[in-house]
């Protein structure tokens, strides 16, 4: 694997408005790595994405993408947000949305020929060529996520950011999408960051975990992060990581979270209520 760092955070603190949500993050994610961004709701996972996209500024420390500071409209990033204003009445063909991922930020009306060709290639890469002329409003959740992935890939980015693409998918579609992202990461040698709640569908595919919780960020290979010691330290409370016979894991908090927000990480400390 190539070791060119794509995303580098140094003593990074993230937040929005006048609130710091987490701090002290140090990690680097390299080209061709597939990283899962995990953690509870409201922990600041999307905030990390918004900083990478140049929509929020780091509150402390530094963040670089391929050696450059984050900026709005960075063509090296493809983005799949959690929210899409598409409903069952949206009778626009999928190809049009994918094409906008390439040239939608440009002024003018634009000629459609080259854009449509690029969009068709991106759809082929995510195995959604047959959906090109289907209306967005009639696609299933899994089909839509493939279209969004194509929209993110059409500009040939170095980094793709996927915000909860697995939400609302059933278990099989979830596995299909994870495999697809993993394949895209390998074949295109891009770096992918994927925000998720459930780690199990991702475990066999990801290279790294960025775990955001309790105002802190832990990063490393899945085994380095997803263990009782690291997560207990991160949450500041006793956490068990259970593994079943097939390697699936469950993260379980063993007692009440400690009342103080900014804890000193002391490994293995149990506060039984």
């Amino acid at each position, binding site marked *: 694997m190539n070791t060119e760092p794509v995303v580098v955070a140094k003593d990074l603190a993230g937040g929005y408005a006048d609130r710091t949500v987490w701090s002290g993050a140090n990690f680097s994610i390299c080209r061709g790595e597939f990283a899962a961004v995990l953690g509870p709701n409201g922990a600041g996972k999307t905030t990390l994405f918004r900083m990478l996209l140049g929509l929020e500024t780091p509150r402390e420390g530094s963040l670089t993408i391929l050696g450059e500071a984050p900026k709005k409209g960075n063509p090296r990033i493809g983005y799949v947000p959690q929210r899409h204003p*598409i409903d069952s009445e949206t009778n*626009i063909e999928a190809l049009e949305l994918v094409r906008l991922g390439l040239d*939608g930020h440009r*002024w003018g009306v*634009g000629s*459609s020929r080259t854009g449509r060709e690029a969009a068709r290639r991106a759809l082929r890469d995510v195995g959604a060529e047959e959906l090109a002329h289907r209306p967005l409003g009639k696609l299933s959740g899994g089909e839509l996520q493939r279209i969004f992935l194509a929209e993110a890939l059409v500009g040939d980015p170095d980094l793709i950011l996927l915000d909860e693409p697995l939400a609302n998918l059933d278990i099989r579609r979830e596995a299909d999408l994870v495999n697809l992202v993993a394949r895209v990461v390998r074949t295109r040698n891009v770096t992918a960051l994927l925000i998720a709640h459930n780690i199990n569908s991702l475990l066999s595919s990801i290279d790294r975990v960025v775990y955001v919780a309790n105002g802190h960020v832990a990063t490393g290979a899945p085994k380095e992060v997803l263990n009782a010691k690291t997560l207990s330290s991160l949450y500041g409370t006793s956490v068990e990581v259970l593994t079943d016979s097939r390697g699936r894991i469950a993260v379980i908090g063993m007692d009440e979270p400690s009342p103080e927000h900014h804890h000193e990480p002391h490994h293995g400390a149990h506060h039984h209520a």
Partner: protein
Amino acid sequence: MTTTAFSFNIIADLASMWQYAFMRHAFEAGTLVALIAGVVGWFVVVRRSAFAAHALSHIGFAGAAGAVLFGVSPILGLLIFTGGGGIAMATFGRKASERDTQIGIVLAFMLGIGVLFISLYSGYATEAYSILFGEILGVSATDVFVTLVSAIVILAAVAVVYRRLLFSSLDEDVAEAKGISIFWIGLIFVLLVAVATSMAVQVVGVLLIFALMVTPAAVAQQVTRRPAQGIIVSVAIALLATWIGLFVSFYVPYPVSFFITALTFGTYLFVRIWGTDDGGAKPAAARA
């Protein structure tokens, strides 16, 4: 309204009705309005902003009524009020989900002001009627000129922002990440709606604005899947409804706005019942 008889020779019929200046002006203004309403309306429907267009036309009612009261052209009052209302909407309600309540609050207040202005003006009934329901047969040469300038400005602006507006309408968060300012594109959009609405009020009035700003575009989005085609269909329906409405009203003594609303509504019903494009039925290969 006239003694000229319908003759089945459409060209001769048009020639005879165009002998009247008021009919020429009506066709000129109606054509321009249908063009801009069809284009802007397509974005109104794709952005789910029909309520904003509705509200802007009602805000325009206060402006038109005020203009009548102070003895200036209603179009001027419409443009000032819808423009101001549009800026206020874009400023206060940035996120789509917050807009309904705020728009409704302003709308109610503006209608109240309009009622006040109308009651202060002595020629109550006729003026109020033409603002509310349109009076295309009463447009002047000056109105046609103002409409022409507005149409050129709107079409030029849409041509410039087309892709950005489309992108932010279909995928706001990605558009923002791609460096498009959602605030500015939203502001440009409401100003386009404000001007288009002000012009369309001449034809169908404040209360029937949907007939030109929403219905043709809603039909277009039922039958097309590509934005460019959708806009063309939307314009075509608005144009045909306006032309046929004007033509028929020359012979039949009922309001033009009735014919236009009936025609667009009829088209909508037709595609809703028979023309529904359900997507899944057709194989992709056949359409490629």
